[in-house]
């Protein structure tokens, strides 16, 4: 391989150390800024998706075909335990649980609000969601007591209802027969997830207590939630479950909450756009530098064209120089970004002082930047493209020179 052009390009870069260093530093800082911001943005979305799946959505859900449209308590899944046993046999399934769900009204002596009542089997629920993990020690327990009519409410709802541990909350709702019914529940635990909207609406009670109040038929539920070992296997597992229980409606997390998938895809796309804009701006800085270089080396370029260097080789020589400028700066920018993402990915950036607004949108109060190998590859490709494109205009300028005039410059 003929490396003379590469050698010339590399040495030419260091002819003006200060100027080349400034350009490289601009690329480094620009890329780091872009990657850090993208990493934070992506980390927030990944966190949001993870929290939503672990606390709320899980990976696959099964309902009665009409339940989601109407949320009526009489749209049941019958023989829940039989279905669960069949699903458990799938090797990709990590946990399965059934739930009874009903909209209702929660009220204390001073306040009342609309809620979604989730009737859960605590031990099974532990296999699927992390709600049991969202209670701090000082804020009660996760259904330790065997006593009936215990309830978990969120910190947000507790504030809203002016309730504490051991407070009594009256829950009213419509039963399976359409009659208004209700019960008094004692607060056993107060939880807090990173999704303020979810927290405000959801309470958890034992399924057995709720089923009794709703007058539900035995061995029935409204929802079966499935957690997989790998969320990316959802389409594969779904295609196995669907034909096994065709009478019910099974769907994966990306269909249950399309905004999660959309937000992830949008973030990837935004990262591409964001980095492209930054590199476009840096490309102009490189073009400007290279135009100065061409001007300074008029005689030299005239000479090499006079002695017989063809247009393609001239382009290659200039391209090497611009690409090296972009790549060295880019490599440093990527290195700093890797360190930044690794460090703050572990430690996290606490934004709790301004995090309330974020929480209401489902984002956490600790940001952990996330950048994957593919993201870096994408940026490296963009840096290469920038280097090549940035060399076109200076090359055109160089090739317009008449060698005889350039030499006498």
């Amino acid at each position: 391989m003929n490396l003379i052009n590469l050698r010339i390009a590399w040495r030419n870069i260091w002819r003006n150390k200060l100027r080349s260093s400034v350009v490289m530093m601009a690329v480094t800082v620009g890329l780091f800024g872009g990657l850090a911001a993208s990493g934070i943005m992506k980390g927030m979305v990944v966190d949001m998706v993870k929290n939503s799946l672990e606390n709320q959505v899980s990976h696959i859900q099964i309902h009665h075909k009409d339940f989601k449209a109407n949320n009526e308590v009489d749209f049941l899944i019958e023989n829940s335990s039989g279905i669960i046993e069949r699903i458990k046999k799938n090797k990709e399934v990590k946990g399965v649980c059934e739930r009874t769900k009903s909209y209702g009204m929660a009220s204390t002596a001073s306040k009342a609000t609309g809620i979604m009542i989730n009737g859960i089997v605590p031990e099974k629920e532990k296999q699927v969601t992390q709600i049991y993990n969202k209670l701090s020690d000082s804020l009660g327990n996760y259904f330790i007591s065997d006593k009936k009519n215990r309830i978990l409410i969120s910190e947000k709802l507790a504030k809203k209802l002016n309730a504490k541990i051991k407070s009594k909350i009256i829950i009213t709702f419509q039963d399976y027969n359409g009659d208004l019914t209700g019960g008094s529940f004692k607060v056993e635990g107060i939880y807090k997830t990173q999704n303020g909207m979810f927290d405000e609406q959801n309470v958890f009670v034992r399924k057995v207590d709720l089923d009794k109040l709703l007058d539900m038929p035995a061995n029935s539920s409204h929802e079966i939630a499935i957690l997989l070992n790998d969320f990316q296997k959802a389409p594969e597992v779904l295609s196995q479950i669907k034909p096994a229980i065709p009478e019910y409606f099974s769907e994966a997390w990306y269909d249950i909450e399309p905004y999660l998938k959309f937000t992830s895809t949008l973030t990837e796309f935004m990262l591409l756009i964001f980095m492209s804009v930054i590199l476009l701006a840096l490309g102009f800085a490189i073009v400007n530098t290279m135009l100065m270089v061409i001007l300074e080396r008029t005689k030299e370029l005239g000479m090499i064209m006079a002695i017989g260097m063809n247009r393609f080789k001239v382009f290659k020589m200039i391209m090497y120089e611009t690409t090296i400028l972009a790549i060295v700066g880019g490599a440093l920018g990527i290195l700093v970004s890797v360190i930044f993402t690794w460090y703050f990915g572990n430690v996290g950036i606490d934004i709790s002082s301004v995090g309330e607004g974020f929480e209401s949108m489902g984002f956490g109060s600790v940001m952990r930047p996330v950048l994957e190998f593919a993201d870096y590859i994408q940026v490296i490709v963009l840096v290469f493209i920038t280097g090549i494109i940035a060399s076109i205009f200076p090359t055109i300028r160089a090739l317009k020179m008449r060698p005889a005039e350039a030499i006498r410059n």
Partner: protein
Amino acid sequence: MNIIELKDLHKIYNETEVEVHAVNGVDLTFEKGEFAAIVGPSGSGKTTLLNMLGGLDTPTSGKITINNTDISHLSGSQLIDFRLWNIGFVFQAYNLIPVLTAKENVEFIMHLQGRKKDEREARTNELLTAVGLGDRLNSRPSKLSGGQQQRVAVARALASKPKFVLADEPTANLDSKSTENLLDIMERLNKEENITFIFATHDARVMKKARRVITVEDGKIVSDVRKNGDE
């Protein structure tokens, strides 16, 4: 045997405004092994003539034939290729690549020709030794004197094994000793290896060494003197 033939060569600048006849109806031939100088005052057209001879400029009309190839109608890229394989250049300001060593500067043109490493290295050593710089192979131009740089330029011009070498004011930036030294080297190469040298110069020392002196005035050849007395 003629290796270069110029027939009724014209070069007119600023054709749309004021016409300047830089070269005006030149007929000229060069034989293999000549050591010739084109001389004349500034603005006489000698450099334009040299540029057209070297394929760096195209004539407005007329014909330039080099080794039976009419170069006056070659395209830009054909001319570049033609220069690479047929013509060696020595410029007034040396024009070496400053980031390359003497050895790399000489090798550079052979890289362009795609010659193999062994051949490149052998020829580079041979040429730099021939111009008296065998001990400065790895010096960069900034570490060499003007005379030494111009000798590297001569070695580079010969590296491509050209049909002839064009030297535009090669001694203009050199002191007497360096000029003498450079001219001796070129004269020796001319005599020993039958390499054709054509100079554009107004340096009396070059004219003295040249065996043929062509005088140009106002774009026309006013005299063509060979040192053996023929005109």
